[in-house]
């Protein structure tokens, strides 16, 4: 416990590790997007068939809860995945505590969420993670295609939000220990985004663009 609470660990995580994290996150993300587009250029039948208008329509269609047929078929899943994803993207950006850190280091700050909103939203994300884990264990269809890495992704998200939340309320572990854990998980998550299937955050837009362009050619909607 001593080490977890130590100022040395905190300094490391808040110092060099933050730099390493953001460099891997940003450079890695650009690299992943760049290599995919580059490969697509070599495959003669991909880029000429991309229909930007259809792609934009498709992104909006699938990013609106309950707009597509499959979102409507799975109301619980849809509710949780949208609470989870909006939370995981917007909460860290607009969190007061994170903003304070940006302000401390760079002197910049922006609009922030109220404490209640941030708390409730974080709880939704945590429940969403538990729901995903439950599905992977109890739904035989999902269980059959689940690999360990799928659990790892959900647990990374779960622990990041759980430890952030617990640190804020200073429950269970001493504040400094919980905060160190939180920062560690947050950094693991950011690093994992370009290195693992969490890249879906970017690839979502490419794969949808491809299928939307196909369905535009067939003159059907993409459900």
């Amino acid at each position, binding site marked *: 416990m001593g080490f977890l609470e130590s100022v040395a660990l905190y300094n490391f995580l808040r110092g060099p590790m933050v730099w390493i994290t953001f460099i891997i996150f940003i450079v890695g993300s650009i690299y992943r997007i760049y290599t*995919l587009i580059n490969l697509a250029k070599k495959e003669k039948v991909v880029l000429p068939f991309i229909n930007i208008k259809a792609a934009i329509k498709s992104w909006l269609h699938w990013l609106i809860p309950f707009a597509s047929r*499959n979102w409507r078929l799975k109301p619980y899943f849809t509710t949780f995945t949208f609470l989870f994803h909006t939370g995981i993207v917007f909460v860290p950006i607009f969190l007061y505590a994170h903003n304070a850190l940006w302000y401390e280091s760079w002197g910049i700050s922006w609009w922030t969420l109220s404490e209640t909103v941030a708390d409730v939203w974080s709880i939704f994300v945590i429940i969403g993670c538990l729901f995903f884990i439950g599905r992977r264990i109890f739904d*035989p*269809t*999902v269980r*059959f*295609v689940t690999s360990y890495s799928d659990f790892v992704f959900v647990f990374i998200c779960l622990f990041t939000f759980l430890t952030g939340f617990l640190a804020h309320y200073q429950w269970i572990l001493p504040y400094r220990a919980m905060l160190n854990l939180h920062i560690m998980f947050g950094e693991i998550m950011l690093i994992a985004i370009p290195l693992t299937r969490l890249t879906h955050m970017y*690839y979502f837009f490419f*794969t949808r663009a491809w*299928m939307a362009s196909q369905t535009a050619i067939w003159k059907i909607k993409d459900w």
Partner: protein
Amino acid sequence: MAIKLEISEEKEVYRSSYFPEYVRPKIYDPGLDETIKRLTPEKIEKAYQAVFGKETARIKAIVETCIHCGLCAEACQWYLSNDRDPTYAPVAKVKMTAWELMKRKGKVDAGLVYDIARIVFTECNICHRCSLYCPFGLDITFIIGLVRRFCFLLGVVPQRMFDQNQTFMATANQVWMSQSDYIDTLFWREEEGMYELKNLRIPMDKEGVEVVWFPLAAEPKTGPYHIDRIAKIFQVAGVDWTMVTMNDYWDSSNMPMFIRDFFTMQRIVKGLYENAARLRAKKLVLTE
């Protein structure tokens, strides 16, 4: 006696040695059972390299995006009509075929090739519905098509599909119909149709038309009345149209596409387009 039969039927199941969940009735199909005996690890790896060896954007995007959420399952008629058996879900089919091959870099034995061929040829219709249910719009059908290509290169294809492909290689249609037989059928249908619509014509190889109609070969062969029905519709609608009889390229079904025999598939498509171009037709109409 009857009871005995039932029991022996129950025992006749096939269980994959790679995926214990994959349990199916035992069947005998020489296109699968006999052809896998000819495989060697080198042949399998070579076929794998030919299809999956080069990294391409589409394979990469699909494999590195799929989050294994199982949402595509709801789309698949195989999944729905088999009591939601997990092994019929689209993503499960990709898992048991392409992922397994890629995980082992093509170093697999003939048993897996059997499972793979059975899955991609007999448990997926290449209908694309799963792509419309996947939140990422992943092109699962494209992956299934690649795996079919892998099986085709190894010659492991269900007998009936392979047979049909050979029919196309020999006659360019799927029912062994000769050119003279085809022409004869069209004349016959014209005559039949005339009893119902006066002056009915089935134009052949007419140049400069608006529409050229390529039927499925099953129409002249087993549903010949289709021909005069369509002819009546064209004639009453006042469409300037024609059928093609000048060579063997008139069947639009192109079954070689389904087993990914690219050579024969291209020959058919090229034949159809060249015929339409020769007649300077503005539109192609195909039966589906």
